[in-house]
């Protein structure tokens, strides 16, 4: 930040400097929130009982308890896995093969750019609550949950963790996240895929306000064998901003400025452009079989999580 930027920041109106201030962290994940998380975990088990066990099976054969197949004994095989009953009946040395159980890696990628904290920071809070809820459900299902905050082309990472007991670590991590900087999804997620060799479900929680285009980030996940799940944080108030008259608008992330006179006609056009942008995201995801879910800030997070469960793709 140069001297001129400092001067600009100091000269800017009070509302501009403090509008992004988040609510106190303790309010974000209070007791009520944690009770709702527990309820979601129970609901998730009930809904998916029978077909969606806590454990995920992979096609790998290994040391699991579920029998999969037999194969001929070869040197070096563990004698413990020789099926002596077959040998007794058929005189062949066959080795029992078991399906190897493997935990799923869930990556919860939270957009921490300035646009997420725009206005009253509701989008950022909403994103963090959703992230916490999904993480809890994942942890409860013994999945490996990794949370990544992305902003300004950089990553802030919480190491993979598993088990419900780690939820407080998750909450603390989310509390410490701050919204600032620009959205550079393609660049950031390129770093993400490079750092995370273990593929899995990548839940992108973002408003997708990327000046370079939201497509780059999602494609980065797709092309690197991650299973992207787009949780689009939407604030409908941004469709029709409360503006009138002669103003100088500036982008809260990039600082790009434009002078214009806002009229009712122009607001209509803005609203139309906002809807078009949102539809383009939805269309992009649908055409590429990318799970997409819009999460308006005015719908409670627990309701949204349940909708996510019903729709599928997050838990299987």
């Amino acid at each position, binding site marked *: 930040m140069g001297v001129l930027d400092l001067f600009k920041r100091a000269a800017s109106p009070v509302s501009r400097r403090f509008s992004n201030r988040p609510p106190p962290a303790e309010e974000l994940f209070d007791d009520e929130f944690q009770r709702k998380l527990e309820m979601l975990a129970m609901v998730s088990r009930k809904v998916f009982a029978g077909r969606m066990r806590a454990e995920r099976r992979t096609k790998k054969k290994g040391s699991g308890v579920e029998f999969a197949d037999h194969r001929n004994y070869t040197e070096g095989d563990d004698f413990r896995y020789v099926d002596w009953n077959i040998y007794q009946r058929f005189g062949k040395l066959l080795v029992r093969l078991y399906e190897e159980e493997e935990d799923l890696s869930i990556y919860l990628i939270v957009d921490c750019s300035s646009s997420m904290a725009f206005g009253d920071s509701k989008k950022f809070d909403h994103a963090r609550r959703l992230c916490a809820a999904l993480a809890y459900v994942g942890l409860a299902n013994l999945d490996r949950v990794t949370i990544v905050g992305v902003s300004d082309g950089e990553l802030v990472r919480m190491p993979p963790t598993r088990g419900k007991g780690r939820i407080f670590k998750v909450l603390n991590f989310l509390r410490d996240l701050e919204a600032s900087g620009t959205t550079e999804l393609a660049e950031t997620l390129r770093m993400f895929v490079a750092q995370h060799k273990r593929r899995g479900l990548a839940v992108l929680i973002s408003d997708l306000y990327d*000046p370079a285009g939201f497509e780059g980030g999602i494609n980065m996940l797709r092309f690197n064998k991650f299973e992207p799940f787009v949780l689009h944080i939407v604030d409908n108030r941004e469709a029709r901003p409360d503006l009138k008259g*002669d103003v100088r608008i500036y982008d809260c992330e990039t600082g790009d400025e434009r002078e214009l006179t806002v009229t009712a006609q122009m607001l209509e056009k803005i609203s139309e*452009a906002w809807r078009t942008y949102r539809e383009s995201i939805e269309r992009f995801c649908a055409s590429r079989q990318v799970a997409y879910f819009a999460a308006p800030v005015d719908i409670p997070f627990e309701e949204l999580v349940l909708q996510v469960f019903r729709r599928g793709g997050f838990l299987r």
Partner: protein
Amino acid sequence: MHLAGLPLSTLLTLGAVVGTLIVGLYILKLRRRPVAVPFSRIWQQVLRDKEATSLFSQLKRLLSLLLQLALVALLLLALGDPRTKQNLVEGRNLVVLVDASASMKATDVEPTRLDVAKREVTRMIDGLGGSDRMLIAQMDASIRPLSTMTNEVADLKHALEQVTASDTRADFLRALSFALDSLRGLGKAEIVVVSDGALGDLGRINRQLDLSNVALSYVKVGKSSRNVAITEFSVRRYPLDKSRYEVMLELTNTNDKPVNTELTLLGDGNIVDVTQLSLKPNESLQRFYKDLAGASRTLEATIKMTDGKPDELPADNHVYALMPERRRARVLVVTEGNTYLEAALLLDEYLDVEVIAPQKYPPAEKFDVTIYDSVAPPHDARTGPALYLAPPAQGSPVEIGKPIDMFGFDTWDKKSPLLRWMELGDIQVAKGFTFKPDKEQKVVGASELGPIMVSGSRSGQRYVALSFDPRESDFVLRVGWPLFILNTVNAFVEEDSSYISSFKTGEVWRVPAPSTTDVATLTEPGGKRRAVPVKEGRAFYLGEHAGFYQLEAPDAPPIRFAANLSDMEESHIAPAANLEIGKKKAGSLGEFKVGVRREIWLYLLLAVIGVSLVEWLTYHRRWTV
């Protein structure tokens, strides 16, 4: 085009300063309120559409600045007061004399002559040129300026609204004198007379005033002369029988045609007499009502046409008179015996006379008047005003001079109320003496040898002294003797037998009032009350309206009196076609054009308002932003 206001250099300086200020403010105006948006890309499509017209937008913004600069330019130009060459000529200075005399109440033009006169003056005001100035004055018995010399239309119209007609004649001489004084030293001076032309003796004006340096214009108001008036109305009690009275009135037909009229005499509002009268063209007819009796205090006379056609000047159709209230006066006569004196006092039944010998003086009771016959005892406050007949040197209120004989009245004050209706020149006196009055004392009558009748005041009480015993003359044998006694008593008890008639409007009235006060309250016929000054027992007031008045003073009973127009000149309502004073003939007025104000600054200001409106509209319609 010339600038009559601020000079060009000043205007240019002002223009530079204000223009710079406006441009500076305009640049500041372009600074807009910063507003954050979450994602400017969404705005880009809309902003691209705007960019297509950005050049036009800039031009429109420039139009806003140009409009504001145009406003400043117009205002500065207005300050410069630009005029065309022909408008730079010196403006006229006008004094408009609006006739508000009684004749202007005539209804021969709708609604009255005065209203038509006001309309004419309004037309003049509307047609005033940019440099013209006007003063409006009301002309009746007095001259009353109602505005300053100004060209403010609102002020002049407000002044004109205040003009009201009175029941007086117009004092044209005084009005012209005022107009000349107002116009002294001013260029293009002009006097405009808006009147019906009933303006009195114009020859006298010509002799007294020099009108050579001013233009004189005459605006005639009125068209006909159908009017019958009561031009005289007089009522009096008989001096020697004050319970009875007589009425004299005069009717005048100012029309050129004969008229039939009905005359009604009212006493205290009740009809006393109704008479049908026929008057020939321009005839004056006198009527007497003799030996009327009654307790009426107010007398009124009215006339109306019997042919059903209206009289065009109602103001002179009604006259008023008031007879003074009769009250009993207590008179003390201190004498050894004087038959002539006692006989004279017997003539007035309203006098309670008590005769006492000088030895019994002072009396125990209070008296209104005391007559000392050849005695002059020490003054007593209870005896009131006094008449001394041949007072001895000891106790005389006036210093006694030399004795004289065989003399008479050679000079006397004919206006003195003591000597009303009397002729003293024939009186022969055998012997007496002269008085040596001081400066405070007034000589009422004198022979060639010295003063013989003196009046004055002592201890707040008035007195009259006669320097001879009437019985030593033929005075007591003449009719003037009882008149003198009764006049003196009446003067002392402030009951003036001449008072029973009425005052004439348009003159300064000297109304008898208690001498103990300096200010009295006068109630006009319309109910309006005003304070009037009182000096030496008289209240002074310039009366302008006919009707009954009431004068009130502290610690004294109210005094009522009447006033009438009774003016033959005002009753002649035929308007004069021309106004000619000596050889100077008033011209007609033709220079005023309604609605034309040749002041360009006014139109510049209107243009400023127009441009402001355009700027406002274009701003709020978002055309210039």
